[in-house]
């Protein structure tokens, strides 16, 4: 229980730090890009929208930094992230809540698949060290050095332009209305296939390498030797003795690399014009839509923190040592 509380406290502090960074960035930067935006939309903004933007970006020079900070928190607790300029006059929170599910499903599924596949391959290649599987390593290294977005570009060039098997852009057939029915879900899966495969290909190499190295280290432990000497079947030694212990660092690595994977996913979304949160960020950058950018950053960070907390709980469940200390 102590462990759980510690982790929750840590993530609470991290969330606070992220929000504070988000608060400080526009105030530390020179110039007032948001002021210019407000001026451009002068007639169309109502007073409450202007007030919320002022609170978010610290345009009210008469208030002290501390007052601005409390105002900012007040806004956040009301779920008010300002107005998006790209999708004027939609509030940022609405833009995000529309696109977040797409990203969550894409990231969730691809991460799960690449973790399972990569760990599996890593277990085998670490166990059969010195076999042909070692020649996989340079290949995976090469693939993992390719930026996600470039792999996406190649995937589009090959499978959407040269051989038009898959759609090049979008998240679903535009003639369909989003709903939980068979045509829509199958269309979403069809559109999501290429981005998904891109992410899995790029992300899998890290899991293979990490798991392989841990397997190599663990399989020289005495308990593996004893299990082998007892005459247990190779399968059993491999999975129940070696892999079971080797997987722990991979799971804590999973938590830490999540931020990186999410970053990569954002890029894949940009390339595929996938209707997720990364594509919104891309459009926001292009249009200098600061409220949307900051909202996206905040939501991404909070989601990554939540996922990390989840990974920690899984770790707690898998590794009895963390429970004992409590």
């Amino acid at each position, binding site marked *: 229980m102590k462990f759980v509380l510690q982790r929750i406290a840590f993530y609470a502090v991290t969330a606070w730090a992220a929000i504070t960074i988000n608060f400080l960035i526009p105030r530390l930067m020179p110039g007032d890009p948001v002021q210019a935006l407000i001026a451009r939309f002068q007639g169309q903004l109502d007073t409450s929208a202007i007030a919320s933007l002022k609170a978010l970006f610290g345009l009210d020079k008469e208030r002290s930094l501390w007052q601005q900070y409390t105002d900012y928190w007040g806004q956040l607790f009301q779920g008010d992230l300002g107005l998006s300029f790209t999708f004027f006059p939609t509030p940022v929170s609405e833009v995000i809540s529309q696109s977040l599910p797409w990203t969550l499903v894409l990231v969730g599924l691809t991460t799960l698949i690449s973790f399972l596949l990569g760990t599996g391959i890593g277990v085998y290649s670490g166990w059969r060290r*010195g076999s042909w599987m070692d020649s996989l390593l340079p290949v995976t290294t090469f693939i993992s050095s390719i930026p996600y977005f470039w792999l996406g570009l190649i995937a589009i060039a090959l499978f959407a*332009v040269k051989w038009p098997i898959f759609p090049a852009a979008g998240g679903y057939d535009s003639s369909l209305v989003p709903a939980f029915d068979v045509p829509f879900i199958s269309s979403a899966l069809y559109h999501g296939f290429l981005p998904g495969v891109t992410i899995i290909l790029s992300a899998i190499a890290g899991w293979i390498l990490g798991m392989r190295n841990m397997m190599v280290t663990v399989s020289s432990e005495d308990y593996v030797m004893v299990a082998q000497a007892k005459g247990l079947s190779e399968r059993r030694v491999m999975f129940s003795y070696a892999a079971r212990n080797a997987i722990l660092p991979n799971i804590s690595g999973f938590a830490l690399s999540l931020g990186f994977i999410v970053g990569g996913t954002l890029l894949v979304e940009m390339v595929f014009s996938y209707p997720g949160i990364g594509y919104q960020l*891309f459009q926001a950058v292009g249009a200098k839509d600061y409220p949307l950018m900051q909202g996206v950053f905040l939501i991404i960070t909070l989601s990554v923190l939540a996922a*990390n907390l989840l990974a920690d709980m899984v770790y707690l469940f898998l590794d009895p040592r963390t429970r004992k200390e409590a």
Partner: protein
Amino acid sequence: MSIPATEVAVLDAAPAPTPSKRARLRFLRGGKTLTGLSILGFFTLLAIIGPWIAPYDPDMMSDKLLQPPSGDHWFGTTQTGQDVLSQILVGTRGVLLVGFIAGFFATVLSVLIGVTSGFLGGVMDEILSALSNIFLVIPALPLIIIIASFVSDAGDLLIAAVIAFTSWAWGARVLRAQTLSLRKRDYVEAARATGEPTWRIIGFEIMPNLTAVIASGFVGTVIFAVLLEITLAFIGVADISNWNWGTVLFWAQSNQALAQGAWWWFVPAGLCIALLGTALALINFGIDEFVNPRLRTETGSSRKIRMRVGFTPVARTTDRTNGAAGTNGSGPAVAAAPGRTPERTPARTPDKEPRA
């Protein structure tokens, strides 16, 4: 992702007697490291002489629009008739410069924070490792995008600084773990007992044993920085008037190179990125294997040897069934040294045994 293995490894590797200069350079001999270093050397050369050997001015437009690769334009031309090869040659410098500057400063930060927190312990350690964990967990890419897009014209140096500022945490974490394990070693205690000042203990007793970890952290950060920088240029956050490989991709993407089938516009830049990244990763593998002998692969030695549990290479006898029986402990498992003829010399190799 290979860093956890290093963490474990240095525990064994550190107390080894100081290797002679030749042994120190041994890791250069590995095929992986050599390949990596030569590719890196090639790109470094391009970064230095690129602008001079570029056949055309990368900004110069011509009437040869969107030409596929030919003798005049090896990598083809863009929609406005610019030469892609020249753009890539000129862009190499920016890529390497930002990568190495960011890698350098991130490494300095990670050494400062990681070693301090590992060595001092106590409250300082708690604060510093919480700080590095916070930076680890916050997704770097969106943060950098936000910082860079608030600055009106984000030049190379600023991008490098922002990357360094957000990517030191992983190195700091690894270094802290390493320092913690070194801190209680006998020779450190001895140095403390003889009254050496703290800065000397850190600088002369601890740091030399961290060299490999620092080096691999540096290389890792350079990979990360190069990828991030190119990504930023591709999204259009960085200053797109500076040529680098990401800028080439940015223009290719915004001019619909994909839909027009202009593969030569974006393929070379991507391959360059992947090659450079692979080179750096190979160097890192070389360092890892140098530090942790267990990770060395002996594929070249003999096809008949199977690596088995406990790092005793087992010679495979004539057919597979026999070999499989041997692994289960019931058959005649023959331990043999890799490199020698496994069938005749059933000798155990001391350096391949676990050093428990």
